[in-house]
C-alpha cells in the first residue's frame, strides 16, 4: 500500500472549497431549522402545558390547530428519508410550482434545495427537542408564574424559555452534528460540498485512501469544533 502525501496537498484547496460550502449549508440550514423547530415545537407543546382554565375561545382553537399541523409536519419529515426529501425539493417541488402557480421556468438551484432540505429536516427534529424540553418543565412553575398575574408571553419569555433552553443544549448539539454530516448526502443533487469534491478528485486520480482519509478528517475537524463550542456554551449556562 502506498500513501502519498503529495496527493493530499494537491487535493486540499478543492476540498476546502467543498468544506466551505458544507459550512454554508449547515449554518444557514440550522439557523432556519432553529426557527422552524422552535415554532413547531412550541405549537406542539403549548396545549399540554397550558392550564385548562385558560383553554377557551378562538385563541385556544387556533393553538390546537397549530399544534396538530406542527405534529403532521414532524411526523411527515421524521417518517421519510432525507435523500427523498432532497430529491423531492430539488426535482418534484418545482414541478408543482410550475403548473400550479404558472411559472414555467421555475427551479431551485442545487444549493438552495440543499439549504431548504436542512431547514425542513433539522426543523422537524429540533421541534421534537423543543417539545421535549418544554414538557420537562415542572407544571408547578407554570402555575406559579401565571398565579402572579403575568401574561402567557411573559411566562414563555422569562420562565419556560430560559429553563427549556438549558435542557435543549445537549440534544441540540447532537442534531447540529447530524445535520452537518447529512449535508454529504447532497452529493446526489450535485452540490459541490465536501463529499462531492472528494468524489470528483477521486474519480480523476483514483487515490481513494488519501482522499477519503482527508475528507473524513476534515469532517471530524468541523464536528469537533462544533462539539467543543457547544460544550463551552453548556458549561456557561448551568443546567437546571
Amino acid at each position, binding site marked *: 500500500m502506498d500513501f502519498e502525501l503529495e496527493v493530499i496537498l494537491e487535493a486540499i484547496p478543492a476540498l476546502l472549497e467543498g468544506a466551505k460550502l458544507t459550512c454554508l449549508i449547515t449554518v444557514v440550514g440550522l439557523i432556519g431549522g432553529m426557527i422552524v423547530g422552535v415554532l413547531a415545537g412550541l405549537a406542539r407543546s403549548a396545549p399540554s402545558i397550558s392550564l385548562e382554565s385558560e383553554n377557551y375561545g378562538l385563541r385556544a382553537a387556533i393553538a390546537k390547530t397549530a399544534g396538530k399541523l406542527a405534529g403532521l409536519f414532524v411526523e411527515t419529515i421524521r417518517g421519510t428519508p432525507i435523500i427523498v426529501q432532497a430529491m423531492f425539493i430539488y426535482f418534484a417541488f418545482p414541478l408543482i410550482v410550475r403548473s400550479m402557480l404558472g411559472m414555467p421556468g421555475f427551479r431551485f438551484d442545487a444549493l438552495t434545495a440543499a439549504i431548504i432540505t436542512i431547514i425542513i429536516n433539522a426543523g422537524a427534529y429540533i421541534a421534537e427537542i423543543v417539545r421535549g424540553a418544554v414538557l420537562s418543565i415542572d407544571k*408547578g*412553575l407554570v402555575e*406559579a408564574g401565571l398565579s*402572579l*398575574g*403575568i401574561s402567557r408571553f411573559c411566562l414563555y419569555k422569562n*420562565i419556560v424559555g430560559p429553563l427549556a433552553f438549558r435542557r435543549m443544549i445537549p440534544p441540540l448539539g447532537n442534531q447540529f452534528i447530524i445535520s452537518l454530516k447529512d449535508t454529504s448526502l447532497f452529493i446526489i443533487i450535485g452540490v459541490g460540498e465536501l463529499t462531492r469534491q472528494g468524489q470528483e478528485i477521486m474519480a480523476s486520480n483514483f487515490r481513494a485512501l488519501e482522499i477519503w482519509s482527508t475528507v473524513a478528517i476534515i469532517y471530524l475537524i468541523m464536528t469537533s469544533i462544533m462539539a467543543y463550542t457547544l460544550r463551552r456554551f453548556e458549561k456557561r449556562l448551568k443546567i437546571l
Partner: protein
Amino acid sequence: MKENMIEFKNVEKRFGNLTVLKDVNLTIENGEIVVIIGPSGSGKSTLLRCINALEMINGGELIIDGIHLPRERHRIKEIRLEAGMVFQQFNLFPHMTALENVMFGPLKARGKSKQEAQKIAEALMEKVGLADRGHHFPSQLSGGQQQRVVIARSLAVQPRMMLFDEPTSALDPELIEEVLVVMQKIAEEGMTMVVVTHEIEFAKKVGTRLLFMDEGIIIEDGKPVDLLTSPKSDRLKKFLRHVV
C-alpha cells in the same frame, strides 16, 4: 360594612366524571383569616385553586374582588394580581436568585421599574427574615427559607388576599414554625387569607374562621375554637381524632 372578597354561589367543579366541589356556597369578607381542613381528596385544594382561576369552575358562580367567573374569564389576570398564591411545592423559579424571584411580580405583572421592584423585594425579604439571602439561588436555600421567599414573591405583587395551599406540608418538622410565624405576621397586618393546612394549632391561634370539608362539601363552618372543641358532625370528630 365589610366588603365581600370571595363569594362562591352554588359552585361545582368536576374533573372528568369526578365531582370535586358540590354546590359550594361560601362568602369570605375582607380581613378574614379562613383556615380549611379536611381529609385528602376532600376538595380543599381545588376550592383554593378555583379562587385564583388555576382551575375554572364548571357550574355556579364565583365572584372574586368584584370579578364574576366564569362570565368574566377574560379578566383572570386581574384576579391573579389580587390573589397571591403559595404552593405546597414552593415552585420558586430555579434560574433566578431569591431576590430576583421576589422582584419578578412587581417587574412583570405590575410593570414597576427595576429600582422600585428592588426596593419592594428587599423590604419583603427583610420581612420574611431573609434579608441576607437575596443572592442565593433556590437550590441553596432550605425548604423553610424557600417557602418564605415564595410568600415574599406573592406579597410583592401587592395582592389584596393571600391563598396558601398546604404551605408547610412539604417541610421537615423543624422548618414548619418559621413559615407559620411569617404567615401569622401577615395575618396580623390585616391581610385576607385562605389557608389550606393540617396545622390545627395555627388554625386555633391565627384563624378567625375554620372550614371543615369532606367529599367536596363544606361540612362545618365556624370559629376555630368552637369547631375544634365541640365538633358537631361525626366526620369532623373522626377527622380530629386522626389529626390531633
